[in-house]
């Protein structure tokens, strides 16, 4: 444990660049390998015959949500320290990709991130200026750094049983609540931002915008992913430009 305590800081900092060399082949593998180096050097020393095989394993294919991958990294370092067979270590890495990906994606990409974004939109729309944006940055970055710190330690502590440890931690419950907040805030932001953004617009234009939105919703249903709001907006904007500029 003392080895990891000394290396935990550099490890967590390097995890901030986990996806620095993301590719379709190894995905986060290179980033995991790079983040592992400080701890592996302290564990084995560069001249130890176990060092390079451990580096090779650490830089192999890996993909999980970047904010919770720290759990896998801590666990992998622990099993390396315990001199588990190499194929067992690789199986652990592979086994963790799916669960940590699913948990982290629900916690962050459909939970914390849209929740913070929507709450910031609400705050800005209500006239709070830049402070909701500042709050978004502070809340996200302090919690993600703390989470990485804690998960590296949890992985180191539990090693092969990291999956069980994560499942019995507060994380699954926090993930559920983050999702609820994201749904509530995300949909609450719509009328709040709508009132702020359409403020002062004549009723006739608001009615026209309403008809446009209804049309977009219908097209979205009919076209599926090809009819994203972004594409429909660009289409409508192009039509407006053509109508008023290109056509006499």
């Amino acid at each position, binding site marked *: 444990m003392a080895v990891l305590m000394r290396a935990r800081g550099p490890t967590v900092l390097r995890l901030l*660049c986990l996806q620095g060399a993301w590719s379709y082949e190894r995905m986060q593998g290179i980033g995991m390998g790079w983040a592992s*180096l400080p701890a592996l050097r302290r564990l084995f020393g560069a001249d130890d015959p176990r*060092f390079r095989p451990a580096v090779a394993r650490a830089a192999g294919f890996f993909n999980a949500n970047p904010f919770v991958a720290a759990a896998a990294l801590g666990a992998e370092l622990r099993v390396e320290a315990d001199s588990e067979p190499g194929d067992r270590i690789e199986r652990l890495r592979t086994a963790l990709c799916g669960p940590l990906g699913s948990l982290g994606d629900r916690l962050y990409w459909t939970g914390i991130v849209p929740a913070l974004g929507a709450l910031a939109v609400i705050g800005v729309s209500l006239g709070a200026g830049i402070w909701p944006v500042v709050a978004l940055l502070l809340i996200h*970055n302090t919690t993600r750094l703390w989470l990485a710190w804690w998960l590296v330690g949890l992985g180191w502590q539990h090693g092969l049983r990291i999956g069980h440890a994560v499942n019995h931690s507060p994380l699954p419950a926090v993930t559920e609540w983050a999702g609820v907040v994201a749904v509530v805030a995300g*949909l609450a932001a*719509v009328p709040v931002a709508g009132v702020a953004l359409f403020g002062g617009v004549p009723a006739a234009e608001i009615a026209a915008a309403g008809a446009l*939105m209804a049309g977009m919703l219908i097209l979205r249903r009919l076209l599926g992913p090809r009819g994203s709001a972004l594409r429909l907006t660009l289409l409508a904007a192009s039509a407006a430009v053509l109508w*008023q500029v290109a056509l006499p």
Partner: protein
Amino acid sequence: MTDPMPWALLLVWGAVVGVDLVSVLQGLLSRPLVAATGAGLIVGDPAMGLAIGTVLELFALDVVPIGASRYPEFGPAGIAAVAAVAGTPVAGGLGVGVVLALALGVFSGRTMHVLRRLNGAVTRRAAPALARGEPGAVARVQLFGVTADLLRAVLVTGLGLALAWLLRSGVTLPGDLARNLGLIAVSGGLIAAVHGGLQRAAGRAFRIGVVGLAAGVAVAWLF
């Protein structure tokens, strides 16, 4: 905005925002509301930054950046949008800025795919050294990836700022076109947020989504 300093600062901000999306930090600096607000502060028009950022953030609420999926990159695009219309009334510039950002965001998102393939090529070349567990090889591939993304972010931001400069230099849109683009942009953003919210609500009780909408209407009514 004839002073060269804001352009340079905007380029630096765009580089930071660009690498924040995936490669370095992922501290939500790349969120469109953050990126555009930062740009607004740099150019001295925080109101425009907040307005453009708000609409783009609504679009971003419909994006789930999971794994190898492809998605637009709104950060540098939002910065370019603010640079293009800063100093104009929000009602007139918002639509132009957002539409520019949406188009740039789609293009910028595609450059991520190119970067990933480039990283893959470099990783394959280093595969023998990586298989031997050479820490130097790991560090070199990592450094290449981060540097390449930084370059990508600079190029994408530079392109956006060049378009912004062109728009500021002589393009004048009819007033009603600018207003119509604003209505279209805001409408699209609201629909994007509704769709994103409903997608997230679909996995849970739909009632939660109804509560959210009702809460929003109540807040909008009260404030």
